[in-house]
């Protein structure tokens, strides 16, 4: 049977680094130690002023082509997950097709999701391949959230970083899915808790929307800037993640102990650790990879997957639970039957952390 399998993952981080020390210098009331203890993030990479989602996605994709046996000419479908497209229109995936030299016979589309986006992308890729519509799907994630952040809003500047990932899913003949089953969830009543209020069609940018206001916590933002209600996001996460995991396990008819590695959306270390202890997941089965890049939205899971492979935490045949959750509210969970990344084998140690070079 036609099934999708992950055959390559690469990622790209912008060159400029915003360290926790840099932030502590800007916000003296928060020490480096305090920020690090709560977020687990030492560095965030920030896109250059003229660096957009397509630029980062192209660099991630070129890294993938350079490191794998596949070339742009193999791709017959391109998916881009982004909430910071280059333009309202045209579709940013179309621009990427052209820049990468992918055949014009391919399909290409953007989809607008954040922290759950990689899960949805995997689901779309699996469906495209199993239905015979595609055989080589290039799934890209790319965000420049930094361009939405007010410089004086420490609540979000400590957490978010820019970055992009590229995942190649190829068609294999296998009796069972390598990616799946999937569980999805949506609750739009939480939309206001992670939002850029102005700039879309609902509320255009005006002089009034640009007026910055200080909130009760001393954070400053305008309606043109990202607002995140951390407490509500935390409560939402605690409610949906355990249920999503239970649902996927039930669908797959496996037990929690059968899962070899859990990879959640890397929101921040505090939330991850709380989830881990609440779900009673042993530390050795829980991937945490955000210290060097922060919360890169839809790229956190592929980055963490890549590092899990580099760290030799994934043997051939390992069962991986991936869970994305956040803006929307939107969430998704899936199981991946790991079949290895060609060229990595089982070597230990991190030899490629993505870096800034394309």
């Amino acid at each position: 049977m036609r099934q999708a399998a992950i055959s390559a993952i690469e990622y790209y981080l912008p060159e400029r680094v915003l360290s926790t020390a840099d932030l502590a210098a800007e916000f003296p009331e928060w020490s480096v130690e305090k920020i690090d203890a709560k977020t687990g993030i030492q560095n965030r990479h920030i896109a250059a002023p003229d660096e957009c989602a397509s630029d980062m996605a192209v660099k991630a994709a070129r890294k993938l082509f350079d490191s794998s046996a596949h070339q742009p000419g193999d791709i017959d479908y391109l998916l881009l997950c982004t909430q910071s497209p280059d333009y309202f229109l045209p579709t940013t995936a179309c621009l990427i097709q052209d820049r990468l030299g992918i055949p014009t016979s391919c399909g290409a589309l953007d989809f607008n999701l954040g922290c759950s986006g990689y899960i949805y992308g995997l689901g779309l890729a699996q469906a495209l391949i199993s239905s015979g519509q595609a055989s080589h799907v290039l799934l890209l994630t790319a965000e420049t959230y930094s361009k939405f952040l007010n410089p004086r809003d420490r609540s979000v500047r400590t957490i978010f970083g820019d970055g992009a990932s590229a995942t190649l899913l190829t068609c294999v003949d296998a009796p069972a899915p390598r990616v799946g089953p999937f569980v999805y969830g949506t609750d739009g009543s939480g939309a206001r808790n992670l939002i850029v209020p102005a700039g879309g069609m609902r509320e255009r940018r005006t002089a009034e929307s640009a007026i910055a206001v200080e909130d009760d916590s001393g954070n400053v933002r305008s309606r043109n800037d990202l607002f995140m209600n951390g407490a509500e996001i935390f409560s939402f996460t605690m409610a949906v993640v355990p249920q999503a995991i239970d649902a996927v396990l039930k669908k797959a008819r496996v037990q929690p102990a059968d899962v070899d590695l859990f990879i959640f959306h890397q929101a921040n270390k505090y939330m991850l650790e709380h989830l881990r202890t609440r779900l009673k997941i042993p530390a050795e089965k829980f991937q945490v990879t955000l210290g060097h890049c922060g919360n890169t939205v839809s790229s956190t899971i592929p980055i963490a997957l890549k590092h899990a492979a580099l760290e030799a935490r994934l043997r051939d045949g390992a069962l991986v639970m991936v869970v994305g959750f956040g803006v929307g509210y939107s969430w998704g969970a899936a199981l991946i039957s790991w079949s290895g990344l060609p060229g990595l084998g089982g070597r230990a140690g991190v030899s490629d952390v993505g870096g800034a070079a394309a």
Partner: protein
Amino acid sequence: MTRDEFLIEMDAILDLPAGTLKGPEKLAELEQWNSMALLGFLALVDTNNGLRLSQRQVVLCSTVADLLSLATVEGVPE
């Protein structure tokens, strides 16, 4: 979780020496009562009492004692 245990946990969340908080302290006058401390409180209540609280409930609290009351009485049960 006893009242004293809760207060000691809140001391840690607010980076205060153990035994500092007694209950009547006004949250608005505690410099360390910020968004990170709020998350710490939510996590504390979720872990120890299995209660899911919303920010809407927490903002109605004026004192540390109000937080304790919320944590033990009015949370959303699992």
